[in-house]
Structure formats: C-alpha cells, structure tokens
C-alpha cells in the first residue's frame, strides 16, 4: 500500500484544502509529522511559539494553569482544527498550554519558515492568512456565544 505523502496530508487538512498546489508545497516544505501521547504538552505558556499544528487525529485541550487548582480547560479541539496562533504575532510566545487528551497526530509546521514564505510570496501569504483568520473568526464567535451561558435556566413556567 502506498504511503500518503506529507504534501497530500497537508492538502487534505481543512485549513489548506482547495489552495493551489504550489501553496500546499510551500506549507509542506515547512512541515513534519508529529505524534503526542496522552498528557504531553504541544505548547507551554511563555515558551517560544514556533509551530502551527494541523490536527489529524486525537484531541487537544487548551488550558491555563493557576495556583492551587488543576489547569482550567478553555476548550478542546480535534481533527480538522488547528492549534497555535502565537507563531503569527510578536513576541511569538505561547499564551496558553495545549495538552494532548489522547494520542494526537498532527502536522507540525515551522512558524518562522511559514512567515518567511508568506513574506516572499505575498499571494500565498494572503491566502494563508485568510484561512487562518477564518478559523480565528470561528473560534472568536464560539467564545462569544459561550459567554452567553446559553444553557443556564431561562424559562419561567
């Protein structure tokens, strides 16, 4: 059986599906396959933010640690989602922890490499940022809706 190549895996991820082949090649050139056992941190608050993770399998918790209590879980993300925005913006430091809930398979993309390619090829950079911004937008909307505490008691009868 033929093994799936990295560019094929990259092209299948919702973040990049439908982008032209050369864009996929740009991303794949910065990418490697990684796996994380349950409990392992993908990113740690305060550490240099150098990677964009495209999740292929398993789930990842976005957490924030606090003294005297277990880490607070903000949300979980699974296959088809991405982990890590901080590689995009100075000072390139993770703002949250991200921990594998179960066995996680991800395509890890070097953030500095991706930023450099985006700068060299503005059309690619714009297309990539549009995709990332759309995911950011979805996550922002979801966070705002959750602030409404929709499932709290709202009836009276």
């Amino acid at each position, binding site marked *: 059986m033929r093994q799936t190549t990295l560019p094929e895996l990259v092209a299948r991820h919702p973040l990049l599906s439908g982008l032209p082949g050369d864009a996929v090649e740009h991303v794949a050139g910065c990418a490697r396959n990684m796996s994380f056992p349950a409990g392992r941190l993908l990113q740690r608050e305060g550490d240099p933010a150098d990677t964009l993770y495209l999740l292929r399998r398993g789930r990842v918790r976005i957490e924030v640690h606090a003294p005297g209590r277990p880490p607070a879980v903000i949300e979980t*993300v699974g296959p088809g989602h991405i982990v890590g925005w901080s590689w995009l913006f100075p000072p390139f430091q993770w703002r949250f922890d991200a921990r594998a809930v179960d066995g996680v398979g991800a395509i890890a993309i070097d953030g500095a490499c991706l930023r450099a390619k985006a700068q060299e090829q503005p059309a690619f950079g714009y297309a990539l940022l549009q995709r990332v911004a759309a995911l950011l937008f979805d996550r922002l909307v979801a966070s705002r809706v959750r602030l409404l505490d929709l499932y709290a008691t709202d009836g009276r*009868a």
Partner: protein
Amino acid sequence: MPSPYRVVGRRAETADVVTLALEPLAEPRPPFRHGQFHMLTAFGVGEVAISVSSPPTDGGPIEHTVRDVGPVTHALCSSESGTVLGVRGPFGTDWGLEDLHEGSDVGALRLGLEHPAEADVVVVAGGIGLAPLRGALCDLARRPGGRLFVAVGARSPDQVIYGPDLEAWARAGASVDVTVDVPSADWDGPVGLVTMLLTGATFDAGRTVALVCGPEVMMRFAAGTLIDRGVDPRRIRVSLERNMQCGVAQCGHCQLGPLLLCRDGPVVPYAAASQLLQERER
C-alpha cells in the same frame, strides 16, 4: 379540556430535569409524531407546553422531560408515580422523519434529494433541547440507510441528559459527541461550543438533513455552521419555542411573524425560519 393521565414512571435525568412517563386513565393512547408537544397541567398550579421525548413507535407510556424552572414545571417535576396530571394534544408540526423513508416522493421533493432514505442525518442539540429530539433519535438510530451524527452541547457534565440513550445510539452505529462549556475535573470529553463538533464530522453535506433544537441563539449559530459546511437550508429543521398557551392557534401568544408556532411549529424548516429569527423583539 385536558385528559387525565397518571404518572407511571419518574426518572431524574439531572438535579433539575425529570422525565415523566404518563398513561391515559380513560382512553387509548392517542397517536403523536416525533417533535410534537403536549400541554401538561399540574392541577391547581397551571399548564405548560412540553415536547414528547419518547418515540411514537414505542407503544408504552408517553414520556415528557421537564426542567424545573418555575411554579408549573416545579409541580410537574415533583410529581411522584400515581399523580394524575392533565394532558392536551398532541399539537404542532413534527421532525418529518417520514420524508426519509424509502420511496417517499414527498420527502424527495421537500428535501430536494433523489434518495432521501440514504441521506445522512445530523442532529444538533443544546441543553434540554435534546428532549424533543430523543424520540426521533431512537428511531433514526434504527434506520437502515444513511449515517447518523449526534452533536450535543451542555453547560457542564452533570447537566447532560439521556446518558444511557447517548451510549445506546453510539452502540447502534451513530457518531455521538457531547461537548460542555464548563468541564468538571473528571471530564475528558470535548469542551466548547456545540458547533465545534461539526467541524470534524464526516457527514456528506450534499445529502445531509439536519435537525436542530436548543436555545435560539445556539440554533442560529448551528444552522449557520451547517450552511457553511454546505448543507442546504431546506434540509435544516429547527424547533422553535415561544409562549405556547392555547395550543390551537387561537390566542396568539406564540406568534412569530406570520407563524403561530403551536400550529405552524414547533418544527420549522430553517429556510422559512431564518429571516424570522433575525427579527428583533420590539
């Protein structure tokens, strides 16, 4: 006039949600359809609209799942076995599962699908909104064609209702995911908005029918996410709730634009409801 029904079973789903099994005292059990509701009376207290939560194909007592949020629902939730309650109905529209039957020409036309029996079905429920979908889910899990995806959102793990049913539907082959807003220490499932569960789901959007029930804001966002995924708005059905009082489209309390939801709802195609849901109350 409400008919007298006896409570023959009472099951606590969560700290403030109870499922009551009711049997008529004096008449055969009247037929009902998935997603319809009854007006339940706690005598001496009042009457409230509650969706049927058991499948019509199950010949046993009729089940209603009630959340204790006010005087009437508190009286209903406090009812022990043997209590007599009043029941009017069934009322309203249903989830339209017959559209998914093999050879349903009306279903094919309404859904714009050549083979509706093979359609994937996506069910999105938030909080107590799973109750009006439970009967449909019991029958959808037994459906031979198409795949079933169930996405459930709840505030916290202890507020997830129908745990045994969710497990049974998964055992029957459905893809079942539950997400919570506020996890407990021992929760290892998803955390986040229910729409996040739709991102990784592998349903075929071009032949998907979606049933959505929960808080109205959640339904708007869930429908938007489904449409973004490519689901045709004609194939998204939502269950809308307003102040149902008479149940027979006479009093006007449940009016939403041109609809009287006790008659024209609660289940409404999203294509018809979307504009109305954008209207601000004055």
